[in-house]
């Protein structure tokens, strides 16, 4: 942030801490909160102020965590509750319920206040469909090699995919398993 360069170093450091603590807020709320605290610091401190005076100003403002906490009142849906657990569950496994389950998970994810936009993007994009996508990948890549046999002629196998293809398929499958699991753990940890 460019304005911090005109702040007392202790005040600039404090503003950074507010900004970091506010990461869990929705983007607009975070920006406005940081703007207000920044304005307060610009009014109440100056570059050449003794450290002790600057510290008094910061003490009166309070702990950045407490400020961000005050921004998030205990309202239903604002914290990890049934809504959030249902979203995580459906994003992971909802794909097996005709894919609609996963879409319901996305809707729950975006309607919750427990996550910020970045969390929601990660929840949606890693991996669309959740674990069901891994299942589909396994089906699609696993049926390439076909063998036919019949009376009177030996078993004929059509050539399977090359080694390179197999490695890519296994890698893709691995990503489709690890991705959704990682995302579930991430969302569970980030929700608040």
């Amino acid at each position, binding site marked *: 942030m460019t304005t911090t360069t005109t702040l007392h170093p202790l005040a600039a450091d404090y503003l950074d801490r507010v900004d970091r603590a506010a990461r869990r807020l929705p983007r607009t709320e975070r920006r406005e909160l940081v703007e207000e605290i920044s*304005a307060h610091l*610009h009014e109440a401190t100056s570059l050449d102020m003794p450290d002790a005076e600057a510290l008094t100003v910061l003490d009166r*403002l309070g702990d950045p965590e*407490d400020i961000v906490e005050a921004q998030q009142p205990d309202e239903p849906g604002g914290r990890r509750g049934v809504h959030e657990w249902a979203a995580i569950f459906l994003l992971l496994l909802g794909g097996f319920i005709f894919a609609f389950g996963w879409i319901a998970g996305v809707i729950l994810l975006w309607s919750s206040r427990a996550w910020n936009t970045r969390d929601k993007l990660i929840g949606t994009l890693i991996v669309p469909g959740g674990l069901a996508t891994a299942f589909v990948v396994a089906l699609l890549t696993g049926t390439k090699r076909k063998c036919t046999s019949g009376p009177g002629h030996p078993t004929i196998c059509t050539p399977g995919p090359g080694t390179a293809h197999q490695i890519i398929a296994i890698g893709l499958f691995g990503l489709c398993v690890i991705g959704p699991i990682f995302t579930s753990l991430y969302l569970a940890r980030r929700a608040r």
Partner: protein
Amino acid sequence: MVAIGDGVISQLRRGVLEFCVLALLRDDERYGFEIVRALSQADGLVTTEGTLYPLLARLRKEGVVETTWRESTSGPPRRYYRLTPAGRSLLTAFTGEWVRFRDSVDGLLETGALK
């Protein structure tokens, strides 16, 4: 001696603080820092100034105050807060209730009986 729990006082404070903000804006618009400093000068009302900014944001979200940016002579533009008509009627309603509440509690505390 029995100490008053911190919880009681902080709940009281939390309950009335938003109306103190509205009262400060009754006659004039003010910018955030002005509101915060005015409130923290009142004895025992505010413990951490920083938490007033989330309160201001909430009041705006509830539609009882609105904001405009104005140029400042001594620095960057300031966000000014003022009451909306909804905020004004909320303040009037609270003022009436508060007077009744305060008189009853005062009467009980002073005489141990209802007036």
